[in-house]
């Protein structure tokens, strides 16, 4: 049984994001796990713009599996409380897998303007890439079988933990 300490990995991600941070940057979390991480990073690192200064981005409108799976229900829409043009965007996600979500959110991002750069930091890179996408920082790198689904959960108190469940075609998301 795989044991991943999400809180310990979050501590490493926080250090990693500190290292990647530059002037004029903004955090954008990928809905939903990445958005939770960005919200907490924004607060813990005391970043400019206050607690609501981070963005949330959704892959829904640019997913490549729309034709077979339809529109995802219950997704929060993209919310970017700052101008994208010329800004260094630090994308945050919980799990990096096939790279398809990243492709979709980069397209989504460019619908709002032209960022100066886009960098990706994740909690876990689980391998299995299907697109040429890489993370500048990953708190953990491991290879999981395709039959396993790894997702971040947030407790009421705000603490993080990972859950591993069997992958079904309907809940594949990475």
């Amino acid at each position, binding site marked *: 049984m795989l044991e991943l300490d999400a809180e310990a990995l979050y501590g490493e991600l926080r250090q990693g994001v500190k290292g990647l941070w530059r002037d004029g940057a903004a955090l954008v979390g990928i809905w939903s796990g990445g958005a939770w991480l960005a919200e907490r990073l924004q607060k813990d690192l005391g970043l400019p713009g206050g607690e609501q200064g981070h963005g949330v981005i*959704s892959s*829904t*409108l*640019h997913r490549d599996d*729309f*034709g*077979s*799976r*339809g*529109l995802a*229900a*219950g*997704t929060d*829409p*993209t919310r970017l409380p700052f101008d994208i043009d010329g800004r260094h965007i630090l994308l945050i996600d919980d799990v990096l897998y096939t790279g398809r979500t990243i492709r979709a959110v980069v*397209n989504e991002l*460019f*619908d*709002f*303007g032209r960022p100066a750069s886009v960098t990706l930091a994740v909690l876990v890179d689980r391998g299995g890439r299907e697109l040429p996408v890489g993370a500048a920082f990953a708190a953990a790198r491991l290879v999981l079988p395709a039959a396993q689904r790894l997702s971040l959960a947030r407790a009421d108190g705000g603490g993080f933990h990972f859950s591993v469940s069997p992958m079904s075609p309907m809940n594949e998301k990475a």
Partner: protein
Amino acid sequence: MLFRRNPQLNKHGELIHLLSIEGLPKAVLTQILDTAGTFLSVNDRDVKKVPLLRGKSVFNLFFENSTRTRTTFEIAAKRLSADVINLDIARSSTAKGESLLDTIANLSAMHADMFIVRHAESGAPYLIAQHVAPHVHVVNAGDGRHAHPTQGLLDMYTIRHFKKDFTQITVAIVGDIVHSRVARSDIHALTTLGVPEIRAVGPKTLVTGDLAAMGVRVCHSMEEGIRGADIIIMLRLQNERMSGAMLPSAGEFYKSYGLTPEKLALAKPDCIVMHPGPINRGVEIASEVADGSHSVILPQVTFGIAVRMAVMSTIAGNQA
């Protein structure tokens, strides 16, 4: 072949055509309203277009004229990146005697992926939905007196936007209810979403007692009908009703049922006034009301695009 289940839903209960609000579960309506919220924010982007229907062809089939509805469907389809083909059907093949199903078969051979249908005959969109290939989707843009489901949904979106909660409001629908597909769709939607009091307001010729069977309160007095209402939905007075001797005159109607500032004062102070358009100033609604602070008639038009985007993308993503 007759459909054994609701022809709008696939075996998983997902929406594949939008033909009528009647019979759709609350969860389906709520999901469309939620999705519309996402699409409304697309207007705030540099690129006001999303690629969900890229490579798909949407055919606007308006057997009855309607510039506004056709235009908002066209804008919605284009914002979803679809190719839109507008057919001036009233002046083309139908006029030459082609049957409805032959028209559909020919357009299907042109690789149509979605039909947006407006027709004077109730049920025409159902007939089309029964005869298209499994990958083709149909949206009813108004059929006879039967239904106008996207108008119903955009009205629900508007109400939710301004009032948040359906379960605490009183809605008054005023005018020609009997002949109105908008009123019928609104009543079904309001009922499904849990509105406790729906009033149908108008003269006996246009608001008949049998409407009570739909669960609405029939009011022939305007004062009684709009007193304490949170929402007033005014319907267009269709001129053809006047010639049918259903009304003495437009002036008489305005005197009794036209929404004036004096009558509006009977409703709740934060009441909103809706109208599916086109409005007839001085016939069913006073200019001061149509242009006043209670009016949300223009936001309805804007919301209509987002709601139609939500409907088209929802059905296009579900398999028959």
